[in-house]
């Protein structure tokens, strides 16, 4: 807003927040670059972690699980929400409520429920995780897409696409998704980050992913585990920054 004026309260706020946020982060980083054998500093712990066989295995595993979660979210939510917005169906209230319900349930309680409920063929496949992550991310994903769809003249756009000869699938993939790309990107980022970092549910259901692997590493090489932790903090940060760089600002989307 006002750029020329020196913003004392803002600077003060940022300094305090920055102190609280960065002191622990930098302290941990300092630990992660220590080399106790040689003394001084180096990237030994990072190199050690990357050379571990499990490192790549768990990175890939966590990434594809998160990818599947994103796909489920988009495939299920975009058509459903488009339909809800177009039809003003009576189920709208029900679905709105359902989508918020996961916020009410503590993840620990959800994990207990999940452990005692599913038949063997669901329990025995790691593919149960993306569906459970989908549930955990649902309140955020639903709201992000809902805001995007509310901000555009959806009816006009769909009717135009339909009368130009596009079928429903094509209308959604090449008209609606590009128009609400800001919301779609936000949804992808949210869901991906949440799935990538999920710990509680994963560990209580006895699955191993990247975040739970750190627990084991901590028992054999503490500095290596700290290095992995630092990477697991920086990765989602880079990812989200990258995604927001591609997303147009909130205000421009509202005006469309």
């Amino acid at each position, binding site marked *: *807003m006002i750029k020329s004026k020196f*913003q004392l*309260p*803002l600077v003060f706020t940022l300094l*305090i*927040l920055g102190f*609280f*946020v960065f*002191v*622990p982060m930098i*302290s*941990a980083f*300092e*630990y992660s670059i220590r080399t106790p054998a040689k003394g001084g500093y180096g990237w030994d712990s990072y190199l050690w972690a990357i050379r571990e066989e499990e490192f790549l295995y768990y990175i890939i595993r966590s990434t594809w699980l998160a990818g599947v979660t994103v796909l*489920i979210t988009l*495939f*299920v939510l975009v058509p*459903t929400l488009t*339909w809800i917005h177009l039809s003003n*169906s009576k189920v709208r209230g029900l*679905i709105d409520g*359902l*989508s918020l*319900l*996961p*916020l*009410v*349930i*503590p*993840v*620990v*309680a*959800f*994990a*207990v*429920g999940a*452990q*005692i*409920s599913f038949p063997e063929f669901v329990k025995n496949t790691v593919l149960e995780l993306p*569906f459970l992550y989908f*549930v955990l991310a*649902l309140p955020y994903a639903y709201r992000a897409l809902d805001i995007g769809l509310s901000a555009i003249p959806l009816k006009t756009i769909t009717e135009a696409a339909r009368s130009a000869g596009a079928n429903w699938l094509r209308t959604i993939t090449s008209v609606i998704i590009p128009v609400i790309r800001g919301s779609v990107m936000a949804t992808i980022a*949210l869901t991906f*980050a*949440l799935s990538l970092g999920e*710990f*509680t549910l994963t560990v*209580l259901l006895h699955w191993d992913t990247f*975040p739970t692997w*750190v*627990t084991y590493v901590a028992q054999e090489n503490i500095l290596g*585990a*700290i290095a992995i*932790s630092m990477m697991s*903090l920086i990765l*989602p*940060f880079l990812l*989200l*920054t990258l995604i*927001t760089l591609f997303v147009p600002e909130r205000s421009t989307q509202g005006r469309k």
Partner: protein
Amino acid sequence: MTFKVIEEGAPKRGRAFLTSFIKNFLPATPLLLIVGFFFLFPIARLIYVSFLSNENTFTFSNFVTAAQEPYRTGFVNSIKIGLFSAAIAAFPGAIAAYFIETRGGSKLRRTIAVMSGVLANTGGIPLAFMFYAALGIQGQLTKVLKFFGWDLYAGTFSLGSFLGLLIVYLYFQLPLMVIVFSPAIVSLRREWSEAARNLGANQFNYWIRIGIPLLFPSFIASFLLLFASGFSAYATANALTVGNLPLTPLQIGGLLDGNVSASQLNLGKALGVVMILISACAVIPYLAIQRRSARWQK
């Protein structure tokens, strides 16, 4: 018109029902199926099983045990850490959100939004490491404080204690407050403050009569959400404590893993149900307030 209704109305009832079903429900079925099977069903089963004894007969005894020690202390501690961490984070978080949203440029706001998103989701081992490195016995900040004559570890302080955990929880509670409270600040329109000034109000009048009353519901709502987040946090507590601090999520985790044995097999489920009830007491009012204030926040 009338003719048509008379002609077509009666015999097509069945089909009309089918078309109305297709129109009103069918496109929602994938979502309803997934949510039903992967969410509603486990929760329903959790509630059902919590009322079963070891012999699968109906009983309240799981809940009776859940109200006794050490589970009672677990609930008290969990509620306390939820309340305290929310109370300490809410006000500074709200102020920070205010300055960032009203004084910050768009680049700064977007950076903070991304950072808050990441930080609000930190937890577990990585967060524990960060605080061990800063405030642990060999931590950097501990050394600095000691240099200035304040020995943190002179008393009973440890990161696994209630106080230690409280400090660590603030690390994700503060960013969470910034995230959930910012929309309320954004929706405070500049016209309102200008209108108030035109009518003769000074800054103080504006805040007392307009700003604070408008923001207050959102503030309470954010506080409630923070409470729920602190109350049910598992990963961080699990990484920092070594069984010295009874907290309900840890007790449930212990029972689920079989690390802790209880004579009642379904005790953990009863604890889970009570957790859901407590969390619902905070999250449902939060959602209700959010919905109400969303009306003028557009």
